[in-house]
C-alpha cells in the first residue's frame, strides 16, 4: 500500500487501533441519560406517589369530608360550566381564525398566521389583570368609553361570562395551533370540489372544511379543556370576587389560605384534577386513533383560497379584534394604570412612577425580579437542555432507555402545576429533604412542570434532522463529537431557543407554584404579585404584571430571532431539513440565485 502517490491528508487514526464494534460508542451519553431519566422519574414518581399514598391512607372518611365541604358542589358545577364553555368557544374561535388565515383572502400573510399565537408570549396574569382594568364596573376603561359614547352598558368582568371571556382569550392559541396544522395538510381539492359544486365560501367552511379538520378540533378541545382546568392565574384574579369556585384555586387556597394548611384536602383535589386530566388525554388518544387521517390528501396544501368579497374585512377584523382584546388593550390598560397614583377610570390622570418605585424601592421587589430572572434563564435553560438531550437520545437510540427518556419527559404533561405544587410540598418541604422555602424546591418544580413543554418543542426540531445529515458528516471523516458539535447542535439550536422562549414565559408568569413553594426569602414576581393583589393595590399589581411582560417580551424576541438564523431565512420554505426531493423548478431558481 505504498504506491499511490496521493498528496492528501489522510484520516486521523491512532495507529494500529482497531475499534471493536458498537457498545463502546455513545456510552458516556448513555450514562448521562440514565442519570437524567432516573432523576426525572424520581422527581415525578416520588411526590405523586407519596401524595396518592396519603390520600389512600385517608380512606373514604377523607373523601366524605371533602364532599361535605360547603363549596364542593358549587366547585364541581362552576368548574364544569367554565371548562366546557371555554373549550367550545375557544375551539370555535380558533377554527375561524385558522380558516380565515389559511384558507381565505382575508388572511394577513405569514404575520397573520403567527398573530393568534401572540397571547402565548404574554403572561396570562397580565391579560387577566388588564381586563380587570378594562371592564370593572363603573371605572373600567371600556365602561368609560361606552359612557362617553352614550351607550348605557356597564361591562362587568367579575361575572361568569367575564371569566369565560378571558379564559377563551388566553386559551385560543392552544386550539389554533393543531387546527392551523390540519388546514395546512388538508387537501385543498376537497374544498375546491365543494366550491365547483356551487357552494359559497361560508358554506364550504361549514360543510367541508370544519368536518375535515374535526380530529384537530377535537384535539384542540381536549387541550383547551386541560389548560382551562389547570390555569390558576386567571381565576385567582377573576373568579374569587364574584364567588365562582374553580378547582385550581381551591387546591392552592387549601394550602395558602389556611393555617394550618389542609394538605389532605389539597391532596384529594389534586388527585381529582389529575384523574380528570388523565381521562381527557385518554379520550383524545382514542378518538384520534379512531378517525385518523381520513382527511389528509397527498396533494400539498397552499391551493386556492376562498375569495370573501365584501365579507373580507369583517372576517379580517376578527383577527384584529382578537389581537386587540387578548394583547393590545390589556397591556395598554396596564401601562396607563401603572403610571397613575390613583386609578379613577380616566385615561388622563396624574402621571407617576410611584407604583414602580413601590416594587423596585423594596428589597423584596428587587429580589423577586432577580429570582424570576434567575429561574427563567438558569432553571429554564437547564430544563430545555435536559429536554433536548433526552429527545436527541430518544431519536438516535431505539433502545429501551431511548423510549424511557422520551416517555419520562412527556409524563408530567398529564399532571399539572398545581398538582405538582401540592405534591412537592408534601414530599420535599419537610424532613428528610427539608427543602421548604429554598430556591431549589422551586427550581425542581419548574423543571418537572415545564419539561414536557420543552420536550415537545425540541422534539420537533430533533426529529426534523434527517439521519443522513449526521451519516454524511461521519463519512466525511468527522468523529461523533465533531458531528454532534458541528452538525446536530447547529441544526437544532433554533428549536432549542424557541423552546426556551416558551418555557421562559411560563416560568416568569407562573403564579401557582410561586405562591405554594416560594417564601419572602425566595420570592419571585408571581409570588409578589399575589401578595400585592390580596392587599388590593391595583396600581402596583398593574406595574408588576407589566414588569413580567417586560421581562419576557424582549427576551422572547431575541430568542425567536436566534431561532431563525441566516440559513433558515435563506431556505425556501422546506419544512424538513431533508434536502431531498427538491423537484426541479430549476429554471426559476437558477435565475433568482444568479440575480443575487
Amino acid at each position, binding site marked *: *500500500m505504498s*504506491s*499511490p502517490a*496521493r498528496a*492528501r*491528508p*489522510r*484520516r*486521523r*487514526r491512532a*495507529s*494500529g487501533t*482497531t*475499534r*471493536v*464494534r*458498537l457498545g463502546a*460508542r455513545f456510552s458516556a451519553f448513555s450514562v448521562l441519560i440514565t442519570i437524567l431519566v432516573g432523576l426525572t422519574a424520581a422527581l415525578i414518581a416520588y411526590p405523586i406517589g407519596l401524595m396518592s399514598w396519603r390520600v389512600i391512607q385517608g380512606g373514604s372518611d377523607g373523601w366524605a369530608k371533602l364532599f361535605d365541604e360547603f363549596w364542593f358542589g358549587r366547585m364541581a358545577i362552576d368548574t364544569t360550566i367554565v371548562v366546557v364553555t371555554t373549550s367550545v368557544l375557544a375551539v370555535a374561535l380558533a377554527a375561524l381564525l385558522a380558516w380565515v388565515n389559511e384558507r381565505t383572502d382575508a388572511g394577513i400573510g405569514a404575520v397573520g398566521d403567527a398573530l393568534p399565537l401572540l397571547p402565548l408570549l404574554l403572561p396570562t396574569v397580565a391579560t387577566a389583570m388588564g381586563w380587570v382594568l378594562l371592564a370593572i364596573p363603573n371605572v373600567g376603561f371600556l365602561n368609560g368609553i361606552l359612557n362617553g359614547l352614550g351607550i348605557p352598558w356597564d361591562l362587568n368582568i367579575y361575572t361568569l361570562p367575564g371569566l369565560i371571556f378571558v379564559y377563551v382569550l388566553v386559551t385560543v392559541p392552544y386550539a389554533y395551533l393543531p387546527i392551523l396544522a390540519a388546514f395546512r395538510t388538508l387537501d385543498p381539492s376537497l374544498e375546491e370540489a365543494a366550491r365547483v359544486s356551487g357552494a359559497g365560501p361560508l358554506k364550504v367552511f361549514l360543510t367541508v372544511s370544519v368536518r375535515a379538520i374535526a380530529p384537530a378540533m377535537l384535539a384542540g378541545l381536549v387541550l383547551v379543556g386541560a389548560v382551562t382546568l389547570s390555569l390558576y392565574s386567571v381565576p385567582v384574579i377573576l373568579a374569587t370576587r364574584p364567588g365562582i369556585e374553580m378547582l385550581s384555586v381551591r387546591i392552592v387556597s387549601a394550602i395558602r389560605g389556611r393555617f394550618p394548611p389542609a394538605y389532605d384536602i389539597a391532596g384529594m383535589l389534586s388527585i381529582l384534577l389529575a384523574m380528570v386530566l388523565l381521562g381527557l388525554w385518554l379520550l383524545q388518544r382514542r378518538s384520534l386513533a379512531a378517525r385518523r387521517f381520513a382527511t389528509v390528501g397527498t396533494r400539498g396544501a397552499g391551493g386556492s383560497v376562498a375569495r370573501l368579497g365584501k365579507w373580507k374585512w369583517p372576517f379580517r377584523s376578527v383577527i384584529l379584534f382578537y389581537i386587540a382584546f387578548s394583547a393590545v388593550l390589556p397591556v395598554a390598560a396596564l401601562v396607563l394604570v401603572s403610571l397613575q397614583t390613583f386609578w379613577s377610570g380616566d385615561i388622563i390622570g396624574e402621571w407617576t412612577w410611584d407604583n414602580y418605585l413601590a416594587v423596585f424601592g423594596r428589597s423584596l421587589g428587587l429580589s423577586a425580579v432577580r429570582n424570576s430572572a434567575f429561574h427563567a434563564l438558569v432553571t429554564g435553560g437547564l430544563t430545555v437542555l435536559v429536554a433536548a438531550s433526552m429527545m436527541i437520545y430518544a431519536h438516535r437510540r431505539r433502545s429501551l432507555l431511548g423510549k424511557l427518556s422520551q416517555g419520562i419527559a412527556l409524563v408530567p404533561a398529564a399532571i399539572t402545576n398545581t398538582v405538582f405544587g401540592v405534591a412537592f410540598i408534601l414530599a420535599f418541604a419537610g424532613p428528610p429533604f427539608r427543602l421548604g422555602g429554598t430556591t431549589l424546591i422551586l427550581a425542581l418544580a419548574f423543571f418537572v412542570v415545564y419539561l414536557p413543554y420543552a420536550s415537545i418543542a425540541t422534539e420537533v426540531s430533533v426529529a426534523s434532522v*434527517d439521519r*443522513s*445529515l449526521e*451519516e*454524511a*458528516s*461521519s*463519512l*466525511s*471523516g*468527522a*468523529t*461523533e463529537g*465533531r458531528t454532534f458539535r*458541528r*452538525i446536530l447542535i*447547529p*441544526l437544532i439550536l433554533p428549536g432549542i431557543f424557541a423552546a426556551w422562549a416558551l418555557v421562559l414565559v411560563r416560568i416568569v408568569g407562573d403564579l401557582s407554584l410561586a405562591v405554594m413553594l416560594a417564601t419572602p426569602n425566595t420570592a419571585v414576581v408571581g409570588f409578589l404579585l399575589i401578595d400585592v393583589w390580596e392587599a388590593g393595590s391595583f396600581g402596583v399589581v398593574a406595574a408588576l404584571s407589566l414588569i413580567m411582560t417586560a421581562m419576557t417580551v424582549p427576551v422572547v424576541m431575541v430568542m425567536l430571532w436566534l431561532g431563525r*438564523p*441566516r*440559513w*433558515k431565512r*435563506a*431556505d*425556501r420554505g*422546506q419544512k424538513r*431539513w*431533508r*434536502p*431531498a*426531493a*427538491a*423537484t*426541479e*423548478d*430549476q429554471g426559476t*431558481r*437558477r435565475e433568482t*440565485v444568479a440575480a443575487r
Partner: protein
Amino acid sequence: MTVKSNDSETSHAEASDATPATDTVRVEVSEVDKTFVREGGEEVRAVDDINLSLHREEILVLLGPSGCGKSTLLRCLAGLEHPDRGRITIGGDVVFDHGRGISLPPNERDVNMMFQSYALWPHMTLESNVAYPLRVRGVKKSVALRQASEYLDLVGLTGLGRQYAGSVSGGQAQRAALARTLISEPAVALFDEPLSNVDAKVRARLRAELRRLHKEVGFTAVYVTHDQIEAMGVASRIAVMREGRIAQLGNPVDVYETPHDRYSAQFIGEANLYPGTVSSRVDDDVVVDTDLGPLRAAARNFDLVGTDPALGGEVTLMIRPEYIRVSRGGDGGTPEPNSWRARIESSLYAGSHTEYVCSLEGADVLVWEMAAPVPLSEGEVVTLTAPSWAVRVVGPR
C-alpha cells in the same frame, strides 16, 4: 497525523486475489453476510456471501430491484451497517473483520458517500459543505475553502459557494454533494442512488458530468442504482444483484449481451425468452426446438456461458428485441432459418424506435425496429428474422 496500515493486512488482501495487478486493489469484500430480523422474527438475508474486489479508477455499479441488498452492501462498506460475517478491506486497511472483531466506524474508513437525499447541511454554505471533509482532516480553513471552490468550479457551480444549501435547486445541491464526496479523494467513493431524485433530463446531464469528472479526477466508486440505463452509463463493471447475492458480474457489454441467467436478462433491457430442447447441430449453429419452432443459436453462445450443447439438453434462449429484423409481407418463399411469419398485434411509436408485439401460433415476439419512419400497422403480416449469433443462451430452462 498520517496513518500507516500494517503491511501484513495488505499482503493478505493481495494474496487473496491473484489475477489483476494487486497493488491497485482499492476494495476487497470477502464472504460478507448481513441478516436483518423483521418485526415478527422473520429473518431476511439482505447480503448473502458476497465476494468482490474493486480496482483503482473503477466504477462498480450494484444494480438490482429494491430489496435486493445493494444498499445494505453499500452501507456495510461505509460502516453504517455491520455485517454478521466476513471481511472488508478498503484502501489497504482492514475496516471489518468479523473473525478478529474489527469494525471501524465510518469516520475511520477511507471512504465518502453521496446520499440519495444529498444530505447537504442546510446551516452551511455550499463552500463550507464541500470544504468540510478537508477541515475535518485538519486542513487550514483558507486552503480548504480554496480547494472547495476549485471543486465547485469542477462540478459547474462557479460563484454559488456562498449560497446556503437550502436555497439552491435540486440539481445544484446534487452537484455540490458530488463535490463534497470527491474532495478528500477517498480510496472509494460510495453513491447511493444519487440521481433518483431529479427528472430524466437533469439525470442524463449529470450522468454525463459524472463520466467527465471520472476522466478528470479519476476516482474509484461503488455506485448503487436500480436504473439499468444509469448503470450502463456510468459503470466500468456491473454487478447484477438478486436477493442478497451477485447474479452476474461483468462489464456493461457482457452483462447486456450475454446475461448468465433469465433474471439478469430480464432485469437489464427487454428480452424474448424461449425455453427448448437441443435437437441437432447445423454447421456452427445449434438447433433448439422451442415454441417458435426450431431456433438456431451460434454454438459460440453456448461456450460464452459455459453451457454444454448436448443433444436433448434443456436450455433457455434469449433474443434482444432490437436484434430481430422485421420486413413487410410474409409470402412464404423458402423458409430461411430463424425466420417466422407473424402478425403485428400492437405497435408503439417511441421516437427512437418502434416497438411491435408480434404473435405467432405458439408465442409472442417483442421487436424493436430502429429506423421506421413509417411504422407498420397493427394486423399486418410480417416476416421476422434473427441472426443465429444474436440468439443467446441464458442457461438451462
